[in-house]
């Protein structure tokens, strides 16, 4: 399965944020989307998630044949976790499972999902408003993963997590990547090198893959930084 983007453009008045994006993302890989502050990473995600209308271009999924991307196809994890604070973790999961019943393959019990996400037994029946930032983040990821969307967009989700939770999340992402197209935006280059199979940079409104070839991590990092610096 592939996510194909063709001629995607997005302007904010005269500013061309996304100039002409042409790219193919494949299933089974984690793509590290790197870009400087304000480069348009979140705008790209918002366009793919149809939160923002695009000015030109199209994107679709190619499995056996080309098809339009539906709501069910995308899971979008924001950097700031948003969860309904009046529900407990268990109630939130119950609701999500119920409204996604038809899409969930091999449905597990709620506690199995909690175990998968390494959420403590004591926390499962607490109100989400009492969850820590990291736990809210885990819940947000979990509900996006449960519905099994083909595409998972992660907008700097690990930036503010402690190193233990970061490591847990990295392992979790690696464990689910074979069934998804995962695009992971970050500006932490080490995280991208450690987690991602491919590095893509968004610079001056253009999306470009950086090939690692035979470079070691240090040289590859330098190459990425050079590419990001280019005027």
């Amino acid at each position: 399965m592939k996510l194909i983007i063709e001629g995607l453009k997005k302007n904010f008045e005269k500013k061309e944020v996304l100039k002409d994006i042409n790219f193919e993302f494949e299933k089974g890989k984690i793509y590290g989307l790197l870009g400087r502050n304000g480069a348009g990473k979140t705008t790209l995600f918002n366009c793919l998630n149809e939160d923002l209308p695009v000015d030109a271009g199209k994107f679709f999924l190619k499995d056996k044949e080309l098809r339009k991307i539906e709501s069910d196809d995308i899971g979008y994890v924001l950097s700031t976790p948003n969860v309904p604070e009046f529900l407990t973790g268990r109630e939130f999961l119950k609701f999500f499972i119920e409204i996604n019943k038809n899409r969930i393959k091999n449905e597990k019990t709620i506690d199995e999902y909690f175990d998968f996400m390494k959420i403590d037994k004591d926390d499962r029946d607490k109100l989400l408003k009492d969850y820590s930032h990291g736990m809210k983040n885990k819940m947000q990821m979990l509900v996006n993963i449960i519905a099994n969307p083909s595409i998972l967009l992660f907008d700097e989700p690990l930036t503010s997590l402690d190193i233990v939770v970061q490591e847990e999340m990295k392992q979790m992402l690696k464990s689910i990547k074979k069934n998804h197209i995962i695009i992971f935006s970050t500006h932490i280059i080490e995280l991208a090198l450690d987690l991602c199979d491919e590095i893509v940079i968004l610079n001056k409104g253009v999306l470009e893959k950086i090939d690692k070839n035979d470079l070691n991590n240090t040289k590859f990092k330098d190459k990425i930084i050079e590419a990001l610096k280019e005027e």
Partner: protein
Amino acid sequence: MFKTFITSFKLKNTYRVNSIIYSLKGLPVINKILPNSLYKNKFLKIFGNIISILFEIIGTFLWKGLYVWLVLGSMTFAYKTNPVNTFLHLFVFATLIGGILNTYMLNPTKDKYYAIVLMNMDANTFAVTNYFYSMLKLIIGLIPFTIIFGLMLNVPLLICISMPFFVAMIKIIVIGIFSISDFKKNRVVKNENLPTKKVWILLASLLLLGFGLPYLGVVINQIIYIVLFLISIVFVIIALKEIITFKDYKKMYKLLLTNENVYAVQNANSTKMIKENIAKKIEYNGDITSNKTGFAYFHELFVKRHSKLLTKAIKKQTIIIIGIFIILFIVIFLNPTLKEELNSLPLIYLPYFVFIMYMLNRGTTITQAMFMNCDHSMLTYRIYRTPDVILGIFKERLKTLILLNLVPALAIAIGLVLLLYFTGGTSNYLNYFIIFISIIAMSIFFSVHYLVMYYLLQPYNINTEIKSSTYTVVQWITYFVAYYLIGKKIPTLYFGILMIAFCIIYSLISLFIAYKYAPKTFKIRQ
């Protein structure tokens, strides 16, 4: 010194102009025309500057004119004492109160924060020059009005001219002799907007002496005023010396210009604060659960966990309405002559109840709570924005909103029907039915209206700020239409039938539109 003053004045003017341009960007239609680069647009800058100058003039004259006219001039005639003496009496005590509450120097405004804390301007020069500018503005702004209103009351011209100077002197004395010494001794600065208990007691005493004594026939006279004026001159010289020679304004302002003080009003009204307050209203104990599934489960938990927020006001409203009707029935029983007058209330004053039903409806508060505690987070999940989910939850919410608002509506509807009956009834029995149904219809109409508007115009962005001027305009129009109907005397039979028909048609059309468009419009604003 002059250079610092000019720089600070320019700074204040720049952010004032930018605020004006920012407000323009918030207006419907106009915001579509204006480019994003509007802050460097010369025409808009000129326009902003003109408005800014107008604000400065209004700030200098208008409020002071209103103050002299309303607080002093018109109040003078509320007493039987000599008008000249009363005018001076009210003026002296109001000046003392103003001297404490409105010092200029101890008001933690943003212009001081920007200049002293952020821009690191010379605090001493800034404080002194801006303070004297504000005193000058005060005198210039007051003088025409003390002369006009004073002469109208036959106050001698010299006294009229002296009055603005007296105001400025009292303010200077409060700062120079009390506030600066207090800081020197105790290293404490008191925010003028947050008076302490002692200050409140002092203010209340001054208020009582100022506006209470004339009732007892006790007022100061011109001689006392002149003596006070002359004493002030002595003290103001000492105070001026203190203000000019004081060199620790930076330290004083560091204590005063805290984030809490400077942004107190803004913080209290910010959507962030509203969100935090609404989040605090979530009730939780293990017993609150739901046996339903899907949307109904989700919505029922929302209602149960916000039970107080949703029902507290409605309970209060209902109790007050029942109380009012009971009092009316007792009054009728005790004084049957009032029956005829009260009989007309349900028969010709039904339009007035549109405004009452508007005021009672909890649609705005409830939809705000729905967004802050639920949709703000849920709308970031794409699955929540699918038509099935949006319309499923919309239906549940509509039922709840209608039911909640129907409680006080029923109390009014039954109360009016009974009132009509007990005050002599009506020859046309259809009136009973029309009154009852039209009140219920109005309640349903407002419930539908608020929920549909929320779904069609969802006004909030991810930071819980209202970003839809159309939503605000619709709210205002709703208010004005309801307000317009106050006092309109239309026979209930006609108005009621018209109202019922309107409510049914409006509700059906708006629900149809909501069903068609809400899946597209109900999302977080970018």
